[in-house]
């Protein structure tokens, strides 16, 4: 059975959590703070500790019922923590102490890197407020009654793909030449095949490795700044939620390939200059070599329900990029449409009225 990891304050033995503002672990009880590196030794001490051996309750669960579930015992209060099998860090529901499931990061599951949270819960709430501003079609009631059900700081498992690509691409391109002679205007279109071959490299193209996280949501909060990444330490996870991956690197590769291929196409297409139009016309993009890394990226998730529908917002915990689809007020949409149509229609009428002598003759 996997063991729990709880960081205790060396001063008062209270449970301590990572603080995004100071980038240190802070004790909420005595106010002491500790560098992540200073706790590295403690991390190693803990890693030698034996995992607690619990006897599974015999015959309590029917077969398959516990699939995807894990049960831990809190080291502070002894309460039982029931969570997903992929949960890697959470809080004890009884004593609120942050806990990290050490077993989730053992051996091959150990992430190569982590980007620690830079922005706190308050920043996430403020970003949501800002997100709701200047949205004319947002139902007023949604803004006014907006109660966030929960705000979670989650370390999301990402697969990072480094790739060296070899491309041989063909484009169809056209050059136009225009001239006039007599009563006619001439247009000459010269069509060419344009070939481009070469290499391009990509670093750390991310694909989220958690089936619980909607891929679109995660791709929308990108990019993360790799300069802020640190070597993985479980101490960074204290106080946040964390998942381990449940979609492996092989399964996630397809999505990375798609993105890398289309960007390779676009990068080579940008080198085809001097033409009036360029369209891709086949070719191949091959992977010369690639490596995969495993990292945890910080994301704030905010959930709210409105009129029986669930709305999820996400904020990049490092850069603050905030995304989340909002509901539309159909009445407001109709009012704006009619209002703008009337105003713009009157303006268009006046404009056409004035320029009619010049354009009237060209219309049927």
């Amino acid at each position: 059975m996997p063991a729990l990891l709880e960081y205790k304050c060396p001063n008062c033995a209270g449970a301590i959590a990572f603080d995004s503002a100071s980038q240190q672990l802070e004790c909420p009880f005595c106010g002491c703070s500790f560098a992540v590196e200073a706790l590295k030794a403690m991390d190693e001490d803990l890693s030698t500790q034996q995992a607690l051996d619990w006897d599974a309750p015999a015959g309590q669960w029917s077969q398959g019922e516990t699939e995807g579930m894990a049960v831990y015992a809190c080291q502070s209060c002894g309460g039982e923590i029931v969570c997903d099998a992929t949960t890697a860090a959470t809080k004890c529901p009884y004593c609120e102490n942050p806990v990290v499931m050490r077993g989730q990061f053992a051996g091959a599951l150990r992430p190569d890197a982590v980007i620690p949270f830079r922005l706190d819960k308050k920043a996430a709430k403020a970003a949501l407020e800002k997100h709701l501003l200047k949205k004319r079609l947002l139902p007023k009631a949604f803004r006014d009654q907006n109660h966030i059900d929960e705000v979670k700081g989650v370390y999301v498992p990402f697969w990072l793909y480094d790739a060296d690509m070899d491309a041989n691409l063909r484009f169809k391109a056209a050059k136009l030449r225009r001239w006039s002679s007599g009563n006619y205007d001439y247009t000459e279109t010269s069509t060419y095949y344009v070939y481009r071959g070469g290499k391009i490299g990509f670093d750390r193209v991310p694909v989220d490795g958690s089936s619980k996280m909607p891929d679109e949501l995660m791709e929308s909060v990108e990019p993360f700044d790799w300069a802020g990444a640190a070597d993985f330490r479980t101490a960074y996870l204290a106080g946040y939620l964390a998942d381990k991956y449940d979609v492996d690197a092989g399964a996630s590769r397809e999505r990375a390939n798609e993105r890398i291929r289309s960007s390779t196409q676009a990068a080579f297409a940008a080198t085809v200059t001097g033409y009036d139009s360029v369209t891709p016309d086949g070719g191949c993009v091959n992977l010369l070599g690639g490596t995969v890394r495993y990292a945890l990226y910080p994301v704030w998730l905010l959930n709210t329900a409105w009129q029986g529908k669930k709305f999820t917002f996400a904020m990049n915990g490092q850069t603050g990029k905030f995304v989340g689809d909002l509901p539309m007020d159909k009445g407001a949409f109709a009012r704006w449409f009619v209002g703008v149509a009337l105003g713009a229609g009157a303006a268009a009428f006046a404009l056409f009225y004035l320029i009619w002598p010049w354009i009237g003759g060209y219309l049927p």
Partner: protein
Amino acid sequence: MKKIICALAVLALALLFALPAFAAPPLLTDEAGLLSAAEAAALEEKLQALSDRWDMDVAVVTAASTQGATPMEFADDWFDYNGYGRGENYDGLLLLIHTDKDPPGGWISTCGRAVGVFTDAGIQFIGKQIKADGLDEGDTAAALDSFADWCEKFFAQAETGKPFDEGSLPKTSGDYARIALLGLLGGLGIAWVVTKRMQNSLKTVRKNNQAADYVRPGSLRVVYANERFLYKNVTRVKRETSSGGGGGSSTHTSSSGRTHGGGGF
């Protein structure tokens, strides 16, 4: 040509002697017989009122044939030798409808002050209107009635010092309908774009199909670049010839030596 002129001259002289000197020639001559007696009477009355109001002869002649002359020559001569025109500059205009083609053709000959009132573009405009108002369908009475109405508008506009011309032609009901339609389409189009943008601002969660943020800086190396010519296409479009070139009225000299403006349709 000479024969016609002579014949017309004789006719003019005969009229001159036959009628008292102050009597004006009839403003409507339906040689081709396109109008009923009632229609002719109504039109003549209208033309007379129009002519008196603006002190300019507004005459109409229909002819089955221009007798070998061009419509311009025929109309100019008809105007000159029948004694149309008021004042020392012979102010007035004449509309010739000739039925030697189908649909009938027309020519407007202007003289004196009327040259400035009916610009080249204005004459083409009137031609277009009366063709649409009945000339093309054989309803000559309606077409001529429309001609008289348009003359009224042209005289009134010329009073303001800015006669209808290239770029300032009057708008017809068809024009208004088209302007209204364009305004409606423009309004709907703009409203669609504006509300679509508002709607899009509500949606921030999108798939990112690119990995452009992750291209290793300086890693793009093009080692092979080539182009192969495939084929060439040439298309040609007839250029819109700009008509008039600034508007105004062009003039010519008729066989009698007078200066006329005019245009056919």
